[in-house]
């Protein structure tokens, strides 16, 4: 793969530049871990305080859509990892299509999330806008859905940013890819996989509790 241009003076070599980019991406991911970590801490505190309400709230989420979305996201991560692995000037076509495919799966995820949000709105489960839930568990259920909407909305925002990144890279990498493009793609891929990991945990915390009881 050609090295398009000289590297900046602070680097000793091109691998040094690429390694620095990777470390920088991991520092960014660490800050993101703490962003979602704070939300998840709040989740555990309130689930501990309202175990029945959280189980009841979880049973009102759409597990079919949640499971489908998890599979969609895992598959799109696979396509991105594939693109990074085979990236070279001879494979620009397939890399472009893999990235476009991954971005399309990201859009499928967003679309399914939209359907889910509208179902929850119809069921009066949106705190602050239209929330009605009868019975003693109402407070816990409301806290669950506050977490649900904040966490999934922040996650969906990350997805939208990731989709833009993937489409931008698909466009850039179409012509004469260089090692710089490979590094950029690798950084974007780390971000995309991280968003996938966040969803893996959100899925376990949002959709799975309370399924074995009624």
């Amino acid at each position: 793969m050609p090295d398009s241009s000289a590297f900046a003076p602070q680097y000793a070599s091109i691998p040094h530049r690429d390694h620095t980019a990777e470390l920088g991406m991991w520092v960014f991911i660490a800050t993101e871990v703490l962003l979602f970590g704070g939300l998840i801490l709040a989740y555990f505190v309130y689930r501990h305080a309202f175990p029945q309400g959280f189980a009841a709230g979880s049973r009102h989420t759409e597990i079919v859509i949640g499971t489908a979305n998890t599979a969609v996201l895992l598959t799109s991560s696979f396509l991105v990892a594939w693109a990074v692995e085979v990236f070279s000037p001879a494979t620009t076509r397939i890399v472009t299509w893999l990235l476009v495919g991954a971005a399309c799966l990201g859009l499928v995820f967003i679309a399914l999330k939209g359907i889910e949000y509208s179902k929850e709105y119809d069921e009066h489960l949106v705190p602050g806008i239209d929330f009605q839930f009868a019975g003693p568990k109402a407070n816990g259920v409301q806290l669950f859905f506050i977490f649900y909407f904040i966490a999934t909305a922040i996650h969906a925002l990350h997805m939208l940013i990731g989709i833009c990144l993937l489409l931008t890279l698909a466009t850039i990498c179409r012509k004469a890819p260089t090692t710089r493009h490979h590094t950029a793609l690798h950084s974007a891929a780390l971000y995309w996989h991280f968003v996938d990991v966040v969803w893996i945990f959100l899925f376990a915390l949002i959709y799975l509790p309370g399924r074995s009881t009624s």
Partner: protein
Amino acid sequence: MTDWRPPLALIGAWLGLLALLALTVTLAYVPLGAGNAAVALIIGTIKAGLVAAIFMELRHRSGLTLVFAGAGLFWLGILLYLGSMDFLTRT
């Protein structure tokens, strides 16, 4: 011809992740009491580990990269551990 096929490790990780997803959804419907939450989080952690090791290529990395990747987990551990201590020990 340049090889465009995905390495077997990637395909294996992808299929493994989908299998774990099916397993965790199935187990969520099996009454295990407090075990349900533990099973969901353990399977989630295994899935995250697969993504980190294979998709994020951490299995090919060493030293400094692993320290940087582990730093986030280290601070997350402090956040969750100290943050939940008060609530879990209140009577």
